[in-house]
């Protein structure tokens, strides 16, 4: 679907009413990762082409100017640090409390460890690798450990998931479950409890103090679907009971579960989105860190949809998003890539309630602050 320049113009004009702030950037190479490395910095990395750049970007200062926003003309991203990766970067995570990030490639047999660097140099240097036992063709998924000693939870299929200490390479924990199901995502709920979501939608909950895991397959799993998950945890409490898990399938099916009862999701719904048949796993579901019970979804096309799940009944059908960001489709310039862009990833700002960042296959990177038609007027 080609966007005419009139339609694009209309959308930009409309945006005066629908967005508080809007910034549109063009990266040299598209990214499928946006990872926060500080209050005001993110890391992005290329995934196309043999040699990829990893960049740490400082967000436009205008966003942080507060009352003096008018006096700050600074709307640009600043490249704080940059480095080169020998392989395309599929995932990138930041280890909290450090200047360390870990990356994976699509079929590599190792995790790369990097030091983003401080004030004395702007080069991101590789400081080590974690070699993986298996040489599986599917890339590993990674998640930062939440303990004091930097560690990374990783695995490409469930039986290979392990927790490795970064400094020493020592394996701290291995999942005991025999399963060749491929991992779609994993995340720690607190220092010890973690959750794994398999591509077929199965959830696994484990505890690093105990090798056994609890296994929650889907009630009626349809083959051919790929599932992704998003975990919402209330940061002020580390009790697993305060967590909600959202699972999203490539056909737009959404399941919300409470960590206390992962067997039966408390809400099921079908989003009104195009079925994603792409091999790329751009599917992304994230919970808003500040807004209550809001989540966002992307990866089906060039749009990011925001939903308020409070309105969802236990068996809702086709809920409407409270906001849809169509910026990537609308500001897409054919010269950067022929086909319409697909959003590769998105991320919520950690403290500004309605600010998000999103990236697409055409190399675009947007920062936007949307207006709720009902509450913001």
């Amino acid at each position: 679907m080609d966007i005419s320049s009139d339609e694009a113009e209309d959308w930009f004009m409309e945006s005066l009413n629908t967005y508080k702030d809007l910034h549109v950037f063009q990266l040299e190479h598209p990214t499928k990762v946006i990872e926060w490395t500080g209050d005001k910095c993110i890391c992005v990395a290329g995934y196309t082409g043999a040699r990829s750049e990893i960049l740490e970007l400082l967000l436009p200062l205008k966003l942080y100017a507060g009352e003096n926003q008018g006096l700050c003309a600074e709307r640009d991203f600043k490249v704080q640090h940059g480095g080169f990766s020998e392989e395309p970067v599929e995932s990138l995570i930041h280890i909290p409390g450090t200047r360390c990030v870990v990356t994976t490639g699509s079929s590599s047999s190792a995790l790369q460890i990097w030091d983003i660097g401080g004030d004395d140099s702007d080069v991101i240097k590789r400081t080590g690798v974690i070699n993986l036992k298996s040489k599986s063709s599917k890339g590993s998924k990674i998640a930062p450990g939440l303990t004091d000693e930097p560690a990374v939870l990783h695995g490409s299929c469930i039986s290979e998931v392990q927790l490795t200490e970064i400094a020493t390479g020592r394996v701290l924990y291995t999942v005991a479950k025999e399963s060749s199901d491929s991992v779609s995502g994993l995340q720690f709920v607190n220092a010890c409890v973690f959750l794994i979501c398999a591509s077929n939608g199965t959830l696994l909950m484990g505890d690093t103090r105990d090798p056994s895991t609890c296994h929650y397959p889907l009630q009626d799993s349809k083959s051919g679907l790929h599932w992704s998950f998003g975990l919402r945890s209330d940061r002020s409490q580390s009790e697993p009971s305060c967590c909600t898990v959202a699972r999203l399938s490539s056909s737009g099916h959404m399941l919300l579960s409470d960590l206390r009862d992962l067997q039966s999701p408390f809400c099921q719904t079908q989003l009104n989105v195009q079925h994603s048949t792409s091999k790329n796993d751009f599917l992304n579901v994230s919970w808003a860190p500040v807004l209550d019970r809001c989540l966002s979804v992307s990866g089906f096309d060039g749009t990011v949809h925001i939903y308020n799940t409070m309105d969802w009944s236990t068996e809702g059908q086709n809920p409407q998003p409270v906001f849809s960001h169509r910026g990537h489709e609308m500001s897409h310039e054919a010269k950067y890539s022929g086909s319409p862009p697909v959003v590769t990833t998105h991320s919520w700002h950690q403290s500004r309630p309605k600010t998000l960042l999103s990236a697409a296959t055409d190399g675009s990177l947007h920062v936007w602050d949307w207006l709720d038609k009902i509450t913001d007027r």
Partner: protein
Amino acid sequence: MPDIKITPLGAGQDVGRSCILVSIGGKNIMLDCGMHMGYNDDRRFPDFSYITQNGRLTEFLDCVIISHFHLDHCGALPYMSEMVGYDGPIYMTHPTKAICPILLEDFRKITVDKKGETNFFTSQMIKDCMKKVVPLNLHQTVQVDEELEIKAYYAGHVLGAAMVQIKVGLESVVYTGDYNMTPDRHLGAAWIDKCRPDILISESTYATTIRDSKRCRERDFLKKVHETVERGGKVLIPVFALGRAQELCILLETFWERMNLKAPIYFSTGLTEKANHYYKLFITWTNQKIRKTFVQRNMFEFKHIKAFDRSYADNPGPMVVFATPGMLHAGQSLQIFKKWAGNEKNMVIMPGYCVQGTVGHKILNGQKKLEMEGRATLDVKLQVEYMSFSAHADAKGIMQLIRMAEPRNMLLVHGEAKKMEFLKDKIEQEFSISCYMPANGETTTIVTNPSVPVDISLNLLKREMALGGPLPDAKRPRTMHGTLIMKDNSLRLVSPEQALKELGLSEHQLRFTCRVQLHDPHSDTDTLGRIYTHLKSVLKSYSIQHVPDGTVIVESIVIKVTSSAEEPNLKVILLSWSYQDEELGSFLSTLLKKGLPS
């Protein structure tokens, strides 16, 4: 070894004082002559002591080139040419030549009249300086002197901005000044051909940024104007007439039309006159494509924008006014500002940089109380918005430009080395070229390896090939003889005969004759025969002939035998050879002196 030396002048690493010295092929060129806006003392001028400790600069510089009219690129020009002293040519494009003096005069007025400074250039100095200017056209090669030539390329950025190629013989340097690689509404993107300069010099100021799109900046502008007008407020937009104003007007006009807005938009009369002037300059400057879109709409017939009258400022209700001058330092824009500043519903939008000492600069620094003439204080309650519309190339843009020009080396100025290592690595890896980042005052020397083309005459080539022996091996050098003629900037290798002919000289032949005495009882003829046999056995690889007329010839050497009637056994061997066969001739005479075998 031939080399090119580049020195960015001045102390400190800050942006805001572009002035770069280039030494190439024995010529010295100054690129830009900017003022640092952050200082009030001599630190704002480039450090010319690098060129000479005291005295005028004329004999040390072959020319000065100014890339565009922004003060951080031309602000120190009158100081340099009139107060330090320089009488040589100053090159800049036509629009830059037209706009520079206006900006310099404005700047002078603010600095001297408002701030009361004394060590500053005068109005007359600006005029005298501009008399030395030689205007440039795009893509036109200009001979500064017999050896130095320069050419301007379109840089985008602002009206009249140029990138410049400087060439001496086969060595060249390209300086970008400020440029942008993404086109906007009225200024296209910079363009240069694959000129492959030895060095490409560029600012690094924005090299580590990723620019927000033009559309989003415009959106922000429209949003702010709209919000103010919606709440009944007034918007003041101080503009420098020649530049942003027209673009913002078109933007507002389109917006007003679309949203069906009724609030009046005004354009102060001073602007219209200057805008006409700008328009004429502009139309000759831009390329075909942009010219067409601009000509399609008459720049001064806006449906929603009308000429301003002083009295309108007191009218109630919302309105938008474009007024000069751009930094709120005097005139109409300042008058309107004074009237509107006290109301928080109003807004002032500053579309660009303001020089220290102006009201614009003060309010952009957050000042809420201003001291006016006669000790009156002005409370600044209106909303102040600072927006930057200027077009600069970012990290991606620099890579695009390098791809276009294909330089052999890259040089970045005005950056902090430790904050640019990643960019340096990136450039070096992607293009396999060296990237230099000198600090101000530091000289970078780049060794060039210019090839000198020499034409070789066909005759000479044929002759060399006819010499026989094995064909030349491409991997092994072989000595070749010829004459090099340097004439009219061309070099030719020709045979000596041709050279003599061209020079109108006749060739002289040198021949040596030597007599060797020999005791031999045979007849003259027999002796000669014996000499022939002897030589044949010694000189096996040479061509030796026994000619019936009584001579033996070895290569070009002629041997005859005579004897006198009185002493028939005392033979005299006559050897004669030409200069070229000196070695062989000497050898033969020495050999024959030893006598013949029996």
